[in-house]
């Protein structure tokens, strides 16, 4: 598994360096990779019963609980199949679809990267690693949405999706850390053991909310649903793959993964099912008034994701069964519908349903596949979607408290689904055309392969539902943590659920017939109801945030060097004062030892020199007296046998002098610019800072609670570091990492000066 994952990442890097002969077939060549993953997964998965789970752990940073753990169980099996299987089809499809795009390489690189991260995500058995891949999918998604970066809209949509998903990612990270704090481990297997402990912990609710924030943003739940329709700016293979079948399911995956850890509590039920229910309804409702094919599909995706979240929220055996099944169903029909939308766009030059029409004549095969997929979306027999919908209804009926609300939302959104599916099929394929930019013709096999396979699977599983239980059961039992058997059949007998289905379809269909009257009304309602558009609100928020930061920067980073210095000194003084006052008190009792006369003389000279610096009338005097102070310090170092420091001090002093000489000519005339008042203020600050520093030094004799570390260095310098000069051994051996940091900072400073001086000039 590790090898395949690595291969996937490597293949992304390999894309631009592929031999030229393969240029036309890059997508198909790359498709072999997910295909082999798919086959291997299938092979490994056969005989996988619910409770088996194999993990391989590689230690990475064990101190942080960060291990690379690959877990292969029912859930990762199912998702891995979806990711690799649909990935294969999408790559083959993309090979054709992206034929005439420039920068194909960039597309393939990112989609391979995405695929690899998604596989990593579903295989991770450690929450931290899972988070790593989670973020990777966000980033690759950003690059894929902004693929047509020449367009303002694409860039905006990409940035929006990135900001939202990464914001959620940050929250998720917080949640993960909280969970880790509660359980003392990030391994999901350990977390499951400690599930009870976590749920009764007082940090459970904050952690749950943070994790849900991650899920909600990633899986485009209300009120963050708006980034998903925006993300339709991406090329269609991306929309089909990332924004319907896989990436947005990462949130769902996380819900499923953490269900055994966090689920089952009232908080979980209420929060998750409420968010899901609302999203389900709103998404379906909003899809009605769209005219762009991809936008319609995007909103129905939002709705479907809401359904899945809702089902995980209900958290009964039936609902989990329904959820897992629905994940498959949705991946099948939505990916194929997206691919078909892409084909139609490709052939006719438009995605606007008001312009499209009568496509069944030129594209009979596409029409058949599309209508089968739409049947599945509407939840009609004989497709798999029907079974899914029945299960969902069944799950909803079983909820004790909020069944009625859920039923209304559920039936309502399903009615909308039926309605929108019929409308979509009718308007694109049957209705009279409104004038298409290009005359359509049938699609080639490479493009049709994806929808064909997926629709066929959907039909096959619909007719022989028993055959799918091998894929669904392990996942369900992984989530439920007990062996589960699923009995699926197309015909459930005449019961409440079937009645609801019939009602749904009938209402949906009649609404479709009445659409000419209803849709305009809906549009009016929408424009009144949604005068505040979430996307705009979000954009404004971001813009406001940026301008706030600008203002804040202007206040804090005002650019006056003297005030920076003043801030530093005042803040340091106040802090020292506070600390001393509250912890130690003022009394300083230090045994004063008499120092040799030359030390006293030196100190007096230095004090005099610094006074002269402060009141000097010419710049040269100031510089020279500063030099006296510096060299005096060097002498003090020498007297107290810190030779290395003394040498460094002398050299630094010399360099400073050279720099001053360089600057001297260029500076304005030395003038007294500051007023009397500000000079007095400066003097007060200087005296205060100086005296507090003195007190601090005096005090510091007493604060050595621990044994000084210097003894260790002195003792170990020769045996451990083979050097007699302790200072140097500390610098290059004991604390070499510090030195490395220091020289790195120095280098950065040097490049900073260089770029400030030189680049500024270039601009002019």
């Amino acid at each position, binding site marked *: 598994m590790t090898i395949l994952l690595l291969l996937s990442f490597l293949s992304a890097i390999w894309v631009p360096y592929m031999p030229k002969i393969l240029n036309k077939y890059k997508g198909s060549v790359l498709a072999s990779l997910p295909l082999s993953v798919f086959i291997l997964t299938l092979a490994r998965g056969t005989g996988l019963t619910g409770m088996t789970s194999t993990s391989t752990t590689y230690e990475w940073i064990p101190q942080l609980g960060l291990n690379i753990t690959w877990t292969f169980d029912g859930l990762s099996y199912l998702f891995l199949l979806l990711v690799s299987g649909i990935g294969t089809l999408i790559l083959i499809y993309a090979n054709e679809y992206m034929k005439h795009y420039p920068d194909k390489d960039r597309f393939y690189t990112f989609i391979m990267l995405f695929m690899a991260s998604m596989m990593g995500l579903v295989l991770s058995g450690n929450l931290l690693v899972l988070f790593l891949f989670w973020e990777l999918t966000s980033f690759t998604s950003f690059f894929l949405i902004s693929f047509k970066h020449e367009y303002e809209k694409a860039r905006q949509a990409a940035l929006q999706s990135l900001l939202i998903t990464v914001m959620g990612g940050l929250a998720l990270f917080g949640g993960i850390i909280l969970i880790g704090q509660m359980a003392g481990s990030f391994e999901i297997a350990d977390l499951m053991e400690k599930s009870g402990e976590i749920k009764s912990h007082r940090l459970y609710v904050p952690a749950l909310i943070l994790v849900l924030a991650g899920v909600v943003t990633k899986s485009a739940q209300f009120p963050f649903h708006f980034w998903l329709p925006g993300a339709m700016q991406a090329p269609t293979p991306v929309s089909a793959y990332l924004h319907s079948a896989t990436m947005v399911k990462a949130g769902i995956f996380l819900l499923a993964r953490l269900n055994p850890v966090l689920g089952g509590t009232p908080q979980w039920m209420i929060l998750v099912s409420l968010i899901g229910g609302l999203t389900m309804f709103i998404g379906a409702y909003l899809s009605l008034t769209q005219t762009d094919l991809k936008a319609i599909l995007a909103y129905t995706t939002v709705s479907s994701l809401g359904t899945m979240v809702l089902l995980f929220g209900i958290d009964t055996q039936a609902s989990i069964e329904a959820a897992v099944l629905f994940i498959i169903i949705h991946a099948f029909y939505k990916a194929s519908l997206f691919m078909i939308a892409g084909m139609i766009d490709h052939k006719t030059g438009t995605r606007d349903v008001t312009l499209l029409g009568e496509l069944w004549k030129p594209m009979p095969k596409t029409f058949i596949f599309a209508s089968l997929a739409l049947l599945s979306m509407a939840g009609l027999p004989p497709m798999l979607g029907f079974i899914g919908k029945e299960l969902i209804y069944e799950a909803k009926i079983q909820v004790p408290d909020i069944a009625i609300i859920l039923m209304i939302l559920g039936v309502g959104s399903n009615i909308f689904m039926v309605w929108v599916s019929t409308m979509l099929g009718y308007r694109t394929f049957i209705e009279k055309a409104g004038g298409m930019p290009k005359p359509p013709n049938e699609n080639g096999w490479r493009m049709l392969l994806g929808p064909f396979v997926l629709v066929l699977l959907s039909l096959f599983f619909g007719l022989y539902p028993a055959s799918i239980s091998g894929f669904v059961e392990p996942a369900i039992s992984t989530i439920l943590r007990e062996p589960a058997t699923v009995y699926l059949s197309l015909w459930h007998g005449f019961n409440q659920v079937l009645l609801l289905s019939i009602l749904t379809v009938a209402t949906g269909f009649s609404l479709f017939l009445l659409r000419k009257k209803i849709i305009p009304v809906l549009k009016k309602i929408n424009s009144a109801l949604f005068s505040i558009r979430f996307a705009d609100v979000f954009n404004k928020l971001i813009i406001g945030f940026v301008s706030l930061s600008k203002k804040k920067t202007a206040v804090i980073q005002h650019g006056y060097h003297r005030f920076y210095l003043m801030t530093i000194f005042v803040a340091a003084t106040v802090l020292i004062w506070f600390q001393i006052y509250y912890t130690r008190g003022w009394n300083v009792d230090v045994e004063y030892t008499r120092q040799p006369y030359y030390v006293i003389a030196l100190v007096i000279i230095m004090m005099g020199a610094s006074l002269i610096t402060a009141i000097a009338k010419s710049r040269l005097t100031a510089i020279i007296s500063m030099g006296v102070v510096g060299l005096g310090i060097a002498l003090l170092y020498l007297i107290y046998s810190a*030779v*290395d420091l003394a*040498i*460094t001090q002398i*050299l*630094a002093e*010399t*360099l400073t002098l*050279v*720099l001053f000489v*360089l*600057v001297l*000519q*260029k500076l304005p005339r030395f003038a007294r610019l500051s007023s009397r008042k500000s000079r007095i203020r400066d003097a007060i600050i200087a005296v205060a800072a100086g005296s507090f520093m003195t007190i601090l030094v005096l005090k510091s004799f007493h604060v050595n609670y621990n044994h000084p570390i210097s003894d260790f260095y002195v003792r170990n310098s020769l045996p451990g*570091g*083979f*050097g*007699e*000069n302790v*200072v*140097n*051994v500390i*610098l*290059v*051996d004991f604390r*070499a*990492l510090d*030195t*490395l940091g220091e*020289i*790195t900072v*120095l*280098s950065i*400073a*040097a*490049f900073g*000066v*260089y770029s400030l*001086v*030189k680049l500024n*000039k270039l601009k002019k």
Partner: protein
Amino acid sequence: MKTIILQMALPYIRFILIFFSVITLFRGHNFPGGGFIGGLMASGAFIFQALAWDVNSSRKTLRTQPSVLIGSGLMMALLSAIPGILTGKPFLTGTWVKIPLFADHTLKLGTPLLFDIGVYFTVAGVVLMFIYTLMEEWQWK
């Protein structure tokens, strides 16, 4: 500030500064000195030339860009960390090789020496970058 005395004395001063900077660097482990001080001294040699003649002549004598010095210095410091990692010790742990010389003298070579040489180059490069940049900016004559 071009005086003929400085210009004539330059080759000797430069030699002395660089020579002693290298000595300072290598004696650093047992006596006062080391990469930081050595680097400062070495940069002094080139600053002196820049003051006596001009930046261009100093650059010519240096033969390379200060940024190259910085980069290679940092690289050396980082390279010195590798043997420690390979032997499974914490990052930057010193590794020593003892080469027996005549009589009972042994030459001890270790990664800290490489590290110190890295510091030497980095410091020299950083100082020179400061000085050159500023001198060129102000067209120091």
